[in-house]
C-alpha cells in the first residue's frame, strides 16, 4: 500500500498523519513535504506523527525520521510518534529510535 501523507500545521504545532508503508520509495516525499511545510511555518515547535494507519516501516523510513530529527531538532522542534502499531514499534525500537524520540504504541 502506497504511503498517504497529510500535514496539518497550526500555530506552533504540526500534525503529520501517516498511512500505508514508509519505505525507500515514500521516505523522500515525507522529508520534502516536512521541509516545505516547516519553511512556510517557521513557528512550529512540535511535530506529532499520527501513525495509527502506518502499517510498515523500513530502515529507509526510520532513517528519514532520524534525519528530520537531526535537521529540524536543531531549530528546537520536538518530535513525537503516536499510536504506533506493534510491528512498526518493534522495528523503531530495534534501531534505537525509541531512545531518541518520543514513541508511544497502542
Amino acid at each position, binding site marked *: 500500500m502506497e504511503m498517504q501523507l497529510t500535514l496539518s500545521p497550526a500555530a506552533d504545532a504540526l500534525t503529520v498523519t501517516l498511512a500505508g508503508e514508509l519505505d525507500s520509495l515514500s521516505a523522500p516525499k515525507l522529508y520534502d513535504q516536512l521541509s516545505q511545510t516547516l519553511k512556510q511555518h517557521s513557528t512550529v515547535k512540535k511535530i506529532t506523527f499520527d501513525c495509527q494507519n502506518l502499517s510498515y516501516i523500513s530502515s529507509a523510513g526510520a532513517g528519514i525520521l532520524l*534525519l528530520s530529527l537531526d535537521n529540524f531538532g536543531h531549530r528546537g522542534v520536538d518530535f513525537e510518534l503516536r499510536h504506533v502499531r506493534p510491528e512498526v514499534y518493534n522495528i523503531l525500537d530495534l534501531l534505537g529510535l525509541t531512545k531518541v524520540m518520543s514513541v508511544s504504541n497502542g
Partner: protein
Amino acid sequence: MAKYALDFSATPDNLPIIRHFVQEHLASHVPDPVRRNQFTVAVEELCANSIIHGNHSDPAQKLRLELRIQGQQLHIYLYDPAPPYALHKYPMPPQLLRKDTNRPGGLGIYLIRQLMDKIIVRRRGEKSIYHLVKNLT
C-alpha cells in the same frame, strides 16, 4: 519442505511486491504479525541493498528470492548477479547518523543481523548467494 520463489528485476519499484510476497507466504508459517513483519523487513533490506547498491537499480539485472521452511527453520535465499558484499561482517551497532555524510547509514544491515540467526554469503558461478537462517521455535 515448503518453498516459495520470486523472480524480479533490480528496480526499487519491486520492493513493495517483495514485501507482499513475504507477508503472503509466511502467513501460515509465522502467525505472529510482529515476527512476520521482522522477516519481511529483513528480506526487504537484503533485496534493497542488492537492488540499489549492488545492481545500481538496473532493471536489466535479474534476481531471485526463495523462502524455504525446513522443519522449524526459515531459510531465505537471494541469488544476485552483482559481486557479493560482506553482509555478515559489517560493524555493529550502526551509527544512527554517519559522521562522514551526516546521514543515517548501516541501519538496514544492522536490522538484518539483529533479526536473523545466521548469515552465509558466497559466490557460485555468476551469482552471489545470500543465505539467511532463522529458527522459528
